Each structure stands twice: as structure tokens, then as C-alpha cells.
């Protein structure tokens, strides 16, 4: 237990003081109470902001901590979503069909990422090429899914649906309990917290430290006796599974998915979320993913055509004025302020 607490409160993420944890607890409490204070529509919207967080966390882990930028992690989001739709859709009479769909979706994401990652990392592909390769993969997937219109692209009783996408994807359910509306909101909240705390433990463990060491200097790390290819591969697959988790929640939330979910625009979003928050902090990416999804959704819902232009402009502002990410740099400033305030006065 002490080890778990030690790992969670370790120095690999921002927020370690008592005040921080009290604030963290209060915010979680507010999230828990939120559905009692608002409409089902708003709860569904907040579920959407929450369900993207595992994808953002995957980016933080891979890019911020591991130093590998993937521009195509939405591929694993889409693979998990489609596979869930196929499996759960074909097992719609079975109360455990959605659970089988979840397992199949996550396995499919891990499998594709495993094969792709194997060729990338074991061939020691240079880091700057990896974003291009990952982007190519997701664009290929989009192109493939886009041409799956028609009855011939039917798997069991489920139609892939081409650019119109797959519809009628079942809710998630465990036995007789269906997660929809409020219960789905709590499911998303639980998944986000579980992912966040697990990753916080991971990045504070020796494994996490070695991942950061690889980011800092691959050769030095290898010559300390670590198989950096294997470690990078594990991180890549893990981050793909996190993306897959978001994909699963997405299709369970909206009951549909289209190829545009693995397209260029969507591919850029997790990169923006991570960059704006600050890739080197899990918490920063949680905050930025939630906030940017809220901003995008709100602007789009109000009929603003320029939601993505605004998000893009935000990325430019971040790059220019907050190169380490807005949340990270604000947290650093607050930390410095606190240190200065509590520092003993000079004689």
C-alpha cells in the first residue's frame, strides 16, 4: 500500500503537495455530484469530454515521457471502436456481448500496434520518421473503411457502412446492467481515474524512469543494459490500448463510428491536446484534453464553423508562448511562487 502511495505521489507528474491532493479530491467530488445538479444532455456532453482523456494520456505517455510522436493514434481508437461494433453487434442477444466486444477491441488495438511497433522499433526507425509512418497507417485505415459501403462489407449482421459509418452499436453492459446516461458518465469517470492513477504509478516506477531515460538519450540508456526497443514497443502498445479504450467509450457513447474518426483532422487532435497541456505531465494532458474537448464541442454546438481554426490557433499560441505546455508552465510558475513565499528570509 505504501509503495502504491509512493508511486502515485512520486515526482514524475505535477501536483505532489497536500494542497494539491485536497484540491484534487474536491474536483473529483464535484464530478461525482455533477449529474445530480444538471440535465442528462449536459452529463452526456461531459461524458464525451471525459472519454477522450485515455487517448490524451496515451499521447502523453508515448510522446511526453517516451519521446516518440505518433500522429496516427486515432487508428487504434478506430480499430477498437469498429471491432467493438462488430463483436457486440453480432452478440446483441448476449448480455456479455459488449464485454466480449471490449476485450476484442482492446486486443485488436494492441495486436495492430504490436505488429506496427515491432517493425518500427526493432528496425530502429529514426524518431522523426515515426510520426509520418503512424499518420500513413491511420490514413490507410480511413481510406479502407471509406470504401466499405455496400452489403458485401457485412460482418455477420453488422454493416461497416463506408463513409456513412457503422450505426446501431450497442451500449456497454455487464450482465443485465446497461451503461447509458448517468451510469455511462460514471463509467467514463472511473476509466479516466483508473487510467490516470495507473499511469502515474507507471511513470514513477523504474520502468517509467527508463522510458524517460530513453527519451533523453537512447544510446546511453542502451549502454546501461536496457533493451530500449522492447521498452519503446511496450509503451507504444500501451498507448495504443489507451487510445483503444477511448474508441470503445466513444462508440458506446454515440452508438456509431465513421471513418472520419481515423482521419487527418482527428489524428491531429490528440497531438494538440497533449501539446497545449504539456506533454511531460499526465495531469496537464488530462486537463487540456477535457478543456479543449469542451471548447471544441461548445463552439461546434453553437454553430461556429471555426472551432478547429480556433483550436489550431491555440496550438500556435502554445508553441510560441508556452513551449512546454500551458498547464505545465502555469504549474511551474505556481510552484516557484510557493517556493519563494515559503523560503526563509535572508538574514
Amino acid at each position, binding site marked *: 500500500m505504501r509503495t502504491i502511495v509512493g508511486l502515485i505521489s512520486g*515526482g514524475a507528474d505535477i501536483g505532489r503537495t497536500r494542497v494539491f491532493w485536497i484540491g484534487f479530491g474536491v474536483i473529483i467530488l464535484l464530478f461525482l455530484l455533477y449529474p445530480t445538479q444538471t440535465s442528462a444532455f449536459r452529463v452526456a456532453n461531459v461524458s464525451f469530454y471525459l472519454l477522450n482523456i485515455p487517448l490524451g494520456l496515451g499521447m502523453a505517455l508515448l510522446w511526453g515521457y517516451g519521446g516518440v510522436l505518433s500522429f496516427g493514434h486515432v487508428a487504434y481508437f478506430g480499430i477498437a471502436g469498429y471491432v467493438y461494433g462488430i463483436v457486440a453487434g453480432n452478440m446483441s442477444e448476449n448480455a456479455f456481448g459488449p464485454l466480449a466486444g471490449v476485450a476484442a477491441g482492446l486486443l485488436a488495438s494492441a495486436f495492430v500496434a504490436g505488429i506496427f511497433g515491432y517493425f518500427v522499433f526493432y528496425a530502429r526507425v529514426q524518431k522523426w520518421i515515426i510520426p509520418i509512418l503512424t499518420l500513413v497507417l491511420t490514413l490507410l485505415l480511413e481510406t479502407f473503411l471509406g470504401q466499405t459501403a455496400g452489403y458485401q462489407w457485412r460482418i455477420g449482421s453488422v454493416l461497416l457502412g463506408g463513409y456513412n459509418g457503422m450505426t446501431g452499436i450497442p451500449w456497454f453492459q455487464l450482465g443485465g446492467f446497461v451503461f447509458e446516461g448517468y451510469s455511462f458518465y460514471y463509467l467514463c469517470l472511473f476509466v479516466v481515474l483508473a487510467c490516470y492513477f495507473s499511469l502515474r504509478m507507471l511513470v514513477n516506477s*523504474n*520502468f517509467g*524512469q*527508463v522510458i*524517460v*531515460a530513453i527519451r*533523453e*538519450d537512447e*544510446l*546511453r*540508456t*542502451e*549502454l*546501461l*543494459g*536496457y*533493451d*530500449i526497443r522492447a521498452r519503446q514497443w511496450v509503451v507504444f502498445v500501451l498507448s495504443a490500448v489507451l487510445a483503444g479504450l477511448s474508441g470503445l467509450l466513444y462508440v458506446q457513447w454515440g452508438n456509431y463510428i465513421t471513418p472520419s474518426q481515423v482521419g487527418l483532422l482527428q489524428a491531429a487532435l490528440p497531438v494538440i491536446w497533449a501539446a497545449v497541456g504539456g506533454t511531460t505531465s499526465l495531469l496537464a494532458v488530462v486537463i487540456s484534453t477535457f478543456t479543449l474537448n469542451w471548447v471544441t464541442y461548445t463552439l461546434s454546438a453553437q454553430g461556429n464553423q471555426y472551432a478547429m481554426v480556433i483550436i489550431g490557433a491555440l496550438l500556435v499560441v502554445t508553441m510560441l508562448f508556452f513551449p512546454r505546455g500551458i498547464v505545465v508552465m502555469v504549474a511551474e510558475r505556481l510552484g516557484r511562487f510557493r517556493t519563494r513565499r515559503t523560503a526563509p528570509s535572508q538574514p
Partner: protein
Amino acid sequence: MELTAVIETRSLNKRFGGVVAADNVNFKVMHGEFRCMIGPNGAGKSTLFAMLCGIQSADSGQIFFFGQDVTRTQAFQRVRLGVGLTFQTNRAFHQLSVRENLTIPQASAKLENKEAGQARLEFALDAFGLDPNDETKAAELSHNQLQWLEIAMVLVGYPNLILLDEPTAGMAAEETQQTAKVLKHLNSTGLTTVVVEHDMAFVKDVAQVVTVLHQGRIFAEGTVTKITAHEDVRKIYLGRA
């Protein structure tokens, strides 16, 4: 002292286009030795070092560590046999803290050497004035502290052999002497040490055997006295004066 070869190369060759970087190198270091490799720029020291590390592959020939053929193994697998390496340019993790620099190598430590390895590590940390709980960013350390930190990082892995490429480069005389003192003590505990070095005062202080490389070949080999007295070595490397 056991009479086993810790490092052995057999007919090692490496060419870069028309340049011969290693020409039939048969290099052997015995257990417990303190060996220094010297030679003028371009003599092939760094190439031999890189081939021993596994960063570069040889065109032909074989490399053995502790009697085991490692010619085709990956760099990290060689390290796991109990080899510690530092580079010519400092490669401690500058953006991480001293503590993190010293904990990262722990998971790959050679645990069968724990007793001797821990004693060596503690001696080096103490002599170098490094605190394993220090949260200072490595980038804030002075040059010599960074060099020392990298040596300490290598010792965290409890190695049987350390290969150091110019460990005293850029150090003042006093710091060089301190480094020599620590390395000599570590060697006296049975840690085989191979150092590539330019500083002849340092080499004279520490080396039991000196290998002189010239144009990719082992030009001469022997005790410091023998090498410094060697007429041709003086001509190519030490100067006639």
C-alpha cells in the same frame, strides 16, 4: 589475480571507405588489469571502443567478453555481461536529477556482483562527493561532477569491467588526480579497467599496461616505462623532446 581474458579481440578489421580504422587488431585485457589505450588522433581508438561497445560492427574478426563471443550481440546484451561504459562526451541524463541518474541503471544491475559492486559504488560516490538522493538537475552540475556522475552511473550496474573513453577530458589537474585516485582504488578491488586517454600524466599515474594504437593497428604494448621509452612511440605520439 585470475589469468582469464576479460576482453579479447581476434583479427578485428574495420574500414570507412578508404580509411582503415582497425587493421587486424588482436587486443587482450586480463582480469584485474588497469589498461590505458593511447594514440594520436585518427589512430582508431574510438572505433575500437565503439566496436567493443557494440555501437559499430566490425567488418571481420571476433570480440570476446569473459570468454564469450559477443561479436554479433546487441550493445545492451554486452553490458549485461557486466560491462560499464562511459563516452568521450558526457552522456549523463542532463535533464534529470542526480538521484534519477543514479536510480535508472539499477534495474539492469548485475546482482551477483552486488557485494563488491555496492562497496565500489559507495566509495566512488563518497570520493566524488555525489549524493544519491540529490534532486539537483544534472545540467546544473559542473563539468567534472558530470563526468564523475557518469562513472558512478556505470558503477550502479555492478560491472566486472569498465571501459572509459577519456574520463578526465576537460578536467583541471586536481580533478584529474582525484579521478585517477578513485579509478585506481576501484581497480585494486578487482575491477578490470580500460581507459582511452590523451593525458599522459594520467596514464603514467594509473596504467599497468599501455596499448598504443596507430593507423588502426596495435603499434606497441607494454608497461608505462617501456612505452615511454619506446623510440617510435615517442616519435608518433609523445614527441621527441
